[in-house]
């Protein structure tokens, strides 16, 4: 449950990545190099979407529950989240076809973009369908998104899963009701940066760099 929320809402920087090369080559158009904006006819699309990511900072009182990592190891939620690394959290379920593949793909890209800083960031994905998402299924899912050693997936008892979701104000009553959400924390005891909406890997990178700069 959020115990304190500071209204520090701001718009994130629009995503500037250029990704439409494949389309343009298909369209058989010649784009001049001195007109870089022409390479991205989707800029309007993405800029609008980037503005839909809502940022806030919240202190959460997280529950004392046990969660189970993809390797079958059970541990407290505090241990799952609490080491020296920056922690970045999202919520997924492995049979989700709409939001979760996007969120996981963004984590995968973020993981790559971190480069040398990768070892200083702990990516954590909590299943919101824990009875379906056994550790074995989480391993399979993690493999699909090329999860590295600093990206863990957690399941557990359904009561624990609900408690974790409630702890982050992410519980919507049913797995089919969830929305896109990412949370970042600089260090144990610090507030969480909450990003509601479809954050891109660049959004996460910017939020991470901002956290590091401030802490």
């Amino acid at each position, binding site marked *: 449950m959020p115990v304190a929320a500071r209204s520090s809402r701001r718009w994130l920087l629009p*995503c500037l*990545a250029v*990704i*439409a090369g*494949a*389309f*343009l080559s*298909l*369209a*058989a*158009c010649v*784009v001049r190099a001195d*007109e*870089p*904006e*022409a*390479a*991205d*006819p*989707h800029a*309007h*699309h*993405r800029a*609008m*979407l980037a503005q*839909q990511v809502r940022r806030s900072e919240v202190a959460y009182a997280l529950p004392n529950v046990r969660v189970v990592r993809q390797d079958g190891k059970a541990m407290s939620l505090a241990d799952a989240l609490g080491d020296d690394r920056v922690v970045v959290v999202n919520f997924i*379920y492995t*049979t*989700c*076809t*709409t*939001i979760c*593949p*996007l969120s996981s*793909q*963004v984590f995968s*890209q973020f993981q790559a973009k971190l480069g040398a800083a990768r070892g200083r960031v702990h990516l954590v994905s909590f299943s919101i*369908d*824990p*009875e*379906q998402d*056994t550790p074995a299924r989480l391993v399979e899912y993690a493999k699909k998104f090329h999860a590295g050693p600093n990206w863990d997936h957690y399941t557990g008892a*359904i009561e624990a899963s609900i408690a974790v979701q409630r702890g982050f104000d992410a519980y*919507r*009553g*049913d*797995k*089919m*009701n*969830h*929305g*896109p959400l990412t949370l970042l924390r600089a260090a144990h005891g610090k507030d969480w940066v909450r990003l509601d*909406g*479809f*954050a*891109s*890997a*660049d*959004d996460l990178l910017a939020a991470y760099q901002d956290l590091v700069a401030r802490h």
Partner: protein
Amino acid sequence: MRGPHLGVLCIALLCAAAAQSSAAPPGAGAALYLEGRLPDGRPLQAIGPNGVVARGADAACVNCHRRSGLGSREGDITVPPLTAAYLFRDGATNAADAALAHPPGTTPRSFAYTPETLLQTLVSGVRPDGRSLRAPMPHYVLDATAGRALTDYLASLGVAPAPGVGADEIVFATIVTPDAEPVAREAMLTVLRAYFATQAEAAAARRDEARPNGVAPYRATRRWRLQVWALSGPATDWQRQLGDYQAQDPAFALLSGMAGRDWAPVHAFCEQARVPCLFPNVDLPVVAEQDFYPLYYSRGVLLEAELLRARAAGVRRFVQLYRRDDIGLAAANALRAHAAGVVVEDRVLPAAATTLQARATQLAHALDGIGAEAATLLWLRGDDLRALGNPPPGRILASGLMAGLDDAPLPARWRARTEFAYPLDLPARRALRMRFPLAWLKAHDIPVTALRVQSDSWLACDILAGILEHVGDAYVPEYLVERLETMLGRRLSDGYYPRLGLAPGQRFASKGGALVRLAEDGTVVPVVDWLVP
């Protein structure tokens, strides 16, 4: 020329090329929509709103817009329908056209797409009215041939009339196989007939209410009609019989149903004929979660095998007893599949044993010489449990479903030492929920003869009724399944099950179970409250 104009030109060129596009091979649109495969065999590529690139099956339209093409909803995100009835005309809602399916969350557009503007939108991410597609809709790398194949496929969605849906009624069928246990079969049929009779009365009342202004509010007011499709002869002939039944008087969906040992032909029929098959009373379902149309409560004895294996994780030797013509064979195979590195010995009993004495002799022979280090696993029915003699010295595990659950007739010497798999909620925990089916049975003057069958059959009807309220006018078989995937987890009371839930690719609604002992007085004593193997 500035950049944005060039971008627009690119799209215009692409769309102009549509007129000269080569014809895609038959099935190309379905392959693109369902599998993310382009007509030339390459994987479809989608670029998501947050820069994510997806390819092939991960980029396929079906992931969000679903097999029906009627869209879906996840949290605050509404995925709109994209059947031709919506796309290629403006302001399409069923307020003006009662024949138009109307899934929730759909908002009418002020413009109609053409195949050309649709392709342009899919490629650019910008609609003809200048607005961007809403997240998480990506834009696609599509050429004119692929675009044509896709729009042709979209035009085919939702066009065929739904089987079993008439002007005033909707037909459901239930299946009984020839080896179904007679008491259980009658228990199921009594519940279904009573439920359908009540629904028909309610539907008639609602239609009468709607008549003053001459408009029926929804086709959900249609009367349900039940057909009982009784199968006969060998299982190898059942699929043909089902095809004949469906051809003579088609059903929109199969509801509940009662099997003995074999349900695979029914499962195969549902998948092949594209008929939803909802929650049959089977303890040995077909595990094929890539299939779409059959939905089950649980994996039955296959789940029990995993529960027992998880419970006996330290056991190094199992001795399994089952009759060679019963479902214990499949359960025993399932346990072996989850027991790598462990000795698993099967002691198979012959098929037919008619007398108690014959059973006792066969069982005594099968149990002979089992040492204390081995766990004995009983995949046996009540008739065999009654005939058990001396228990073996080691651990004893058993199938609760095959034994008869709370009523398992286990001899006194076995009771204290036998742990049953129990893939249901514990009696004390389900008592409150069970008031619903019990009150319904009482209200309909139906005596309790086979409570789990009666409760599960009632639950199947209740689930269907609830889902049809949300289906509205969209009587599309695939959409029925999709709504079940989305909404089943939102029910508050599920009889014997602590919770039910599905999703795309999930076909078993209850995932776990308990481990229990049976006390002398019949009380169920929990050993493990709930375990998901």
